[in-house]
């Protein structure tokens, strides 16, 4: 990155001229000091055993710059940043911070050199207060190691005022919203004097408003001369927030581009390695009878709060109904309630007119023919230690097809597996290897094979493409559309608005446990849905 060459760029104004614009805005380079390389990583290699997560990656971030790291899940973005933050030891390569060659052997060294990191999964101690979380590891003490909480609270309050990061220093972190927790994380880094701030997938859990606030915060920080690295796979946010973008694919450095000079499509094809079709092909189809009816449903979370709050919804045969919403608005609890995994407080769920409220999961699966692709493959969907064949009979092992006199019939179990492996293209084609040995995409294929082969009337898919690469995502979408084309009812829950709009026939927007609006996917307006997702009225 040659500073002289870049200085020829015209300087645009800041992109917050219209803060209500969700995805607009243009970045400028005025805060960047091109003579000061805050981070310079050269030929970084990180291997885990035989697996090369980072293969000679170069990265330069200047003072005052917002630099995006773009790549698919598992491309090696987070690994690279964990190396920079001292959580992983690099296999080879060099790191310079502010021009000084450094051996960042643990986070202490990183922190001392002004590097701060906000992880995707927040690194917060939930039962601690905001102040305790912020000072942890760098405590303000009186004599004999006794914590001076009063003084620390004052420091935190000052800091939060200075950067416009409003939080209550006395609140328990477990009581805070996700957006506030993120602010605590940023404060944690600033408290340690961070000059270089790494944000790992910072927008994944935020509402559109909170994303706007974050953009504002990032702007404030770069004005103070801080450098920001954002790890993301969301193109819009890169366009909105970043100056430069480095694209990583399968551990390799693909390109570094100036964001203002490329389109989203360019970025996408660089990320994936081929052209990406944003639209999913599907034929029009008439919607059939009512398959699932949810009436005035109330479901509580562990703390007894109504996370699904008087929700009503209808799902018809031959349609995909997409539920759009930010994570944590009751989607998980809604699905768990419908599938019998969580108790319903009040209201009813019925399938083809029959009440299935609070029936056991087994009854709902086998008698009422609801199949479910769970949000968390590893926690819910699979038994890691079981082989593929055993996983494929999780819901049917006791049926005459697979057992007689309480004894399993191995031949049938394994021939069933062989069929499904072939039909659903699961790899490797071995029915006797444990599920944990499969890739994420193949694990998901296995779950789909199991759920679809169970011949459901209703298929519920929660976050079915999370963490998958583009090829697997297309596969999953096709499978869902296939079910719909066969006249089955499909309920799709996703936090990716694009996915919901592309795959669904109708879209229901969920906010704070209620359906706040239903629109036809054809006339869907992203902006309008985005507003509803954030609780705004039409």
């Amino acid at each position, binding site marked *: 990155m040659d500073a002289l060459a870049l200085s020829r760029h015209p300087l645009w104004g800041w992109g917050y001229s219209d803060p209500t614009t969700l995805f607009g805005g243009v970045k400028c380079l005025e805060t960047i000091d091109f003579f000061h390389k805050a981070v310079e990583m050269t030929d970084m290699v990180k291997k885990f055993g035989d697996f090369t997560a980072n293969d000679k990656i170069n990265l330069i971030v200047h003072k005052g710059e917002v630099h995006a790291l773009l790549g698919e899940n598992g491309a090696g973005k987070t690994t690279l940043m964990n190396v920079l933050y001292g959580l992983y030891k690099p296999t080879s390569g060099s790191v310079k911070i502010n021009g000084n060659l450094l051996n960042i052997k643990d986070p202490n060294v990183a922190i001392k050199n002004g590097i701060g990191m906000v992880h995707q999964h927040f690194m917060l101690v939930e039962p601690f207060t905001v102040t305790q979380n912020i000072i942890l590891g760098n405590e303000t003490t009186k004599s004999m190691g006794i914590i001076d909480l009063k003084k620390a609270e004052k420091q935190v309050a000052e800091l939060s005022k200075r950067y416009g990061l409003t939080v209550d220093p006395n609140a328990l972190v477990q009581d805070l919203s996700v957006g506030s927790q993120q602010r605590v994380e940023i404060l944690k880094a600033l408290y340690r004097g961070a000059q270089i701030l790494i944000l790992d997938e910072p927008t994944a859990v935020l509402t559109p408003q909170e994303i706007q606030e974050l953009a504002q915060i990032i702007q404030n920080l770069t004005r103070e001369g801080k450098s920001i690295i954002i790890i993301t796979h969301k193109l819009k946010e890169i366009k909105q927030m970043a100056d430069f973008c480095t694209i990583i694919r399968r551990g390799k450095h693909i390109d570094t581009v100036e964001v203002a000079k490329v389109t989203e499509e360019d970025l996408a094809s660089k990320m994936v390695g081929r052209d990406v079709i944003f639209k999913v092909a599907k034929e029009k189809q008439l919607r059939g009878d009512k398959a699932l009816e949810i009436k005035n449903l109330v479901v509580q979370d562990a703390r007894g709060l109504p996370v699904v709050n008087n929700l009503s919804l209808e799902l018809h045969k031959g349609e995909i109904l997409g539920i759009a919403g930010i994570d944590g608005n009751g989607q998980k609890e809604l699905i768990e309630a419908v*599938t019998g*995994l969580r108790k319903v407080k009040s209201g009813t769920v019925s399938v083809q007119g029959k009440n299935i409220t609070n029936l*056991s*999961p*087994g*009854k*709902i*699966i*086998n008698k009422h023919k609801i199949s*479910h692709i*769970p949000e968390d493959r590893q*926690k*819910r*969907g*699979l*038994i*890691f*230690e*079981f082989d593929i064949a*055993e996983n494929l*009979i*999780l*819901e049917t*092992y*006791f049926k005459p097809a697979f*057992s007689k006199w*309480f*004894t*399993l019939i*191995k*031949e049938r179990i394994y021939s069933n597996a062989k069929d499904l492996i072939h039909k659903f293209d699961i790899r490797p084609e071995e029915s006797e290897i444990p599920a944990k040995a499969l890739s994420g995409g193949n694990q998901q294929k296995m779950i789909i094979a199991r759920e679809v082969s169970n011949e459901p009337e209703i298929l519920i898919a929660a976050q079915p493409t999370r963490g998958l690469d583009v090829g697997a995502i297309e596969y999953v979408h096709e499978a869902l559309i296939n079910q719909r084309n066969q006249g089955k009812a499909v309920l799709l829950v996703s936090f990716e608005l694009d996915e919901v709009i592309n795959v669904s026939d109708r879209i229901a927007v969920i906010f704070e446990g209620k359906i706040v609006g239903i629109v036809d996917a054809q006339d869907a307006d992203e902006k309008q849905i985005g507003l509803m997702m954030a609780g705004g009225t039409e």
Partner: protein
Amino acid sequence: MKKDARLKKRFNIRGIKDFLLSGSLGVTLISVFLGFMVGAIVLLIAGFNPVEGYFAILKGIFSKPKYMSYVVIYSTPLIITGLSVAFAMRTGLFNIGAEGQYIVGAMVAAMAGYYFHLPMVLHIIVCIFLAALAAAAWGGLAGFIKAKFGVHEVISTIMLNWTALYLSNWAVTLKSFGKQGTGKSFAIQETARIDLFGQWKITEAGIDFIRSHKVLGDILKSPVNLGILAAFLLAFLMWYTLNKTTLGYQLRAVGYNPNAAEYGGINVNRSIVTSMCIAGGLAGTAGALQIMGVSHRIAKLATMEGYGFDGIAVSLIGNNTGIGSVLAGFLFGSLKYGGSKIQDAIDAPTEVINIMVGTIILFVAMPKLIKLIFSFKKGK
């Protein structure tokens, strides 16, 4: 040829082979070896010759038919309590309560054996059945408390162990059941005993036989009983249930991943209770067999006898499998019996066995360390 293949399939030879070849067996064998090494070092530090010590143990196990017979008798309850712990472990439950379930089983068997008057075979069956049932309830109670109220089974079974101990001690004080002043209960009826030739051994013919037959007579000097056959049968049943039946599939699914099992329609709470019932029943059977084959009565206990705790060790060393528990049970039984000879032979404390067993378990718990040693041996 074809029949052979089918046989192989039916009896799942693959499973056994896999087990033998799996990494965990390697870890176990190395752990056992390291346990012996540590035992040797302890003896050495204490000023004994470990070769002599181990030789004394070996001699104490193998030098007389009677000794070997005793090893079998010592091993029997350990194998079965080992199975109890292993079965629960496979469903993801830590049955520290085998001790209490054993005590309950022993107590009920002693009562049924003393109070009831039934014909020979029937009496045995009734005793074992009632003992297993009571212990199953005892174990199932811990399962129920976990399923219903979320109390961890490790804590509840620790409490239930002591409850069982004092309950049993109290039973011994009952006038109709305990011989006053001896701290022991009355002996069970002859019809409820499973020792071989117990009556005949004390007749003249029996005594003559024992005198005149060197090997058989020597064996008969020990309280030979049918318990070990029951242990083998139970080990086989456990393997079959876990690996071949729908119940086993269900319980293993819950053990590996309760969330996924629940999602798949398996009733997790019921599985927990079922598994703890079966585990309790097994431990209770161990207690019953011990009463019916060896001691014939229960006694007031100042502290735990440790059959259940030893069962934990057996299960862990045996990798929580049926066959593993049998082998580990024999290992532990041999060490326990043979180890008691080390005191007489070289005057070294028998407790070196406990240290060895502890060491073995500690290494079994650290496959990471064992693998590190392995990779180091390979020269990296």
